[in-house]
């Protein structure tokens, strides 16, 4: 009966708020990229090392925050131990790099091992939801972190040091991990790729099922989807993103330590995501920049910056629940021509 299918159906997409919101996120990330390029240019001109490295770390943590946002913002799961995978990726990467300083080898091994590790731990964690999920994930991270802390072969409390400089062979050029500007730009590209992968997945039909899980989990099986499988899949995906981000850490800093798995790392990522805007992906990246700046600035004023940040965090949760993106993104969405009210 419907005569012109393509024309009619594409008109419907104006009512697809998540798709529109996603596009607004893309615009914001593009802005961030431009700003980052400018920052790199300035840093190169001034021959700076410290701030470029700090910014690179902010990007790596931003990639980690992306994975936390995937769970919290899109599936509605608060994980308080996601740093487990960040640290896992960092340690595996460090171990591989100490054997052979090959970027691709490290990434490949991290990817495969995290898939397995993520499935095993994911099966455990996803037995529960809500606050129990938060605590089981917390417990998992604590236990593994403590185990590593007490294992001599993994460097115990000092961690693994002496990670060599890594030449990253991209075919058309080689980036050295100790070159501040080049590695910063490489990390930028890497994290943006992670963003693109996540954004794409969440905009697919699978991504819509996840959103449905967050809104009304009970109805989802009646639509024909196994909630267990959906939740496990996205959990493993988030674990892989976290691990890939973590894999860059030893390349930047030259060492890894159990702190990477501690509650503080997981907690910081949650704060990052909330400040930037839960469920926006772009918010994770912006939030990481904001938190890094806040920590540096407040850190110079007082030793107890965690209290200030904690209070700010609570204020954001109460008064600005959608974070920075909540203020900025709707305006951009409207500019892009939002059809739905």
């Amino acid at each position, binding site marked *: *009966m*419907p005569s012109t*299918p*393509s024309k*009619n*159906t*594409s008109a*419907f*997409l*104006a*009512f*697809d*708020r*998540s*798709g529109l919101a996603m596009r607004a996120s893309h615009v914001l990330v593009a802005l961030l990229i431009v700003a980052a390029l400018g920052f790199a240019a300035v840093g190169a001109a001034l021959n700076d090392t410290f701030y470029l490295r700090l910014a690179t770390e902010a990007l790596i943590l931003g990639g980690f925050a992306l994975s936390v946002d995937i769970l919290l913002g899109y599936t509605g799961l608060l994980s308080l131990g996601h740093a487990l995978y960040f640290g896992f990726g960092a340690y595996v990467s460090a171990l591989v790099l100490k054997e052979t300083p090959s970027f691709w080898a490290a990434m490949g091994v991290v990817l495969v091992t995290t898939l397995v590790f993520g499935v095993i731990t994911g099966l455990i964690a996803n037995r529960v939801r809500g606050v129990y999920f938060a605590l089981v994930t917390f417990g998992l991270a604590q236990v593994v972190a403590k185990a590593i802390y007490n294992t001599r072969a993994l460097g115990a409390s000092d961690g693994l040091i002496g990670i060599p400089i890594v030449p990253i062979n991209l075919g058309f050029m080689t980036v050295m991990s100790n070159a501040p500007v080049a590695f910063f730009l490489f990390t930028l590209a890497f994290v943006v790729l992670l963003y693109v992968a996540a954004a*794409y*997945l969440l*905009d*697919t*039909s*699978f991504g*819509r*099922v996840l*959103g*449905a899980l967050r*809104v*009304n989990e*009970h*109805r*989802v*099986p*009646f*639509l*024909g*989807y*196994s*909630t267990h499988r959906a939740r496990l899949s996205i959990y493993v995906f988030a674990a892989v993103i976290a691990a890939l981000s973590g894999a860059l850490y030893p390349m930047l800093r030259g060492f890894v330590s159990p702190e990477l798995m501690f509650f503080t790392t997981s907690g910081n990522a949650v704060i990052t995501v909330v400040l930037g805007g839960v469920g926006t992906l772009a918010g994770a990246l912006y939030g990481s920049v904001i938190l890094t700046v806040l920590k540096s600035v407040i850190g110079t004023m007082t030793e107890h910056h965690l209290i200030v940040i904690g209070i700010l965090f609570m204020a954001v949760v109460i008064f600005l629940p959608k974070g920075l993106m909540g203020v900025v993104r709707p305006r951009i969405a409207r500019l892009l021509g939002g*059809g*739905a*009210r």
Partner: protein
Amino acid sequence: MTAALQVDGLGVAFGGIRAVDGVSFAVRRQAITTVIGPNGAGKSTLFNLISGQIRPHAGRVTLDGVDRTGAPPHLMQRAGLGRSFQITNLFFELTVFENLQLASQRLEPPRQMLRRIGRGEISLRRVGELVERFGLAAKLGELAGALSHGEQRRLEIAVALAAKPSVLLLDEPTQGMSHGDTADTARLIRDLSRDVTVLLIEHDIGLVMEISDHIVVMHQGRMLAEGAPAEVRADPAVKAAYFGDASC
């Protein structure tokens, strides 16, 4: 012709109480079968058993000739069963469009799961069909939670119907509806029964008598009687057990 849906000796007990006990009946294709019975008769539990929400302790559920006993809800849905709920169970924080799009996704081939929803022509076209059939064009951009009760109940049916099930379970579709809405819904259900087999739970006796081809009466977990509306109405056992507290 095989029945669209067949239950044999279906039963489940909770803590010693037999909520459903030895229920057997067949649901004919493209006919409207209604389950009636006083509150607590086990009607919703029966639906939960058929749709896979609860595992039966006894009996069999056969859908389109295939034994599906014990299958979980998502597998029942894939086998061709659609279900609406007595207490509206929509995605209230999503728009009408998003609700319908989600429900229609199952029509797409598996590879569409990893593609943008904009590329899913089949599901988008289905949304268009549903919008027209259920008169929801003006409300596409509204949040499901902002709709009127009657509109929500309609959307509830549309969501159950979206993935083109062969059997549709409607749990008190006219619950809380005004008289006018109820009449419209009755017409809608009769219209639906031309392409899909309908199994209905209802309290509105007038509606039941008007649209049902076949009635199953439940009482205290067991089947009390079944047959054409006139037969059931005349049955003295049914009258005694049920029509005493019926709402007309």
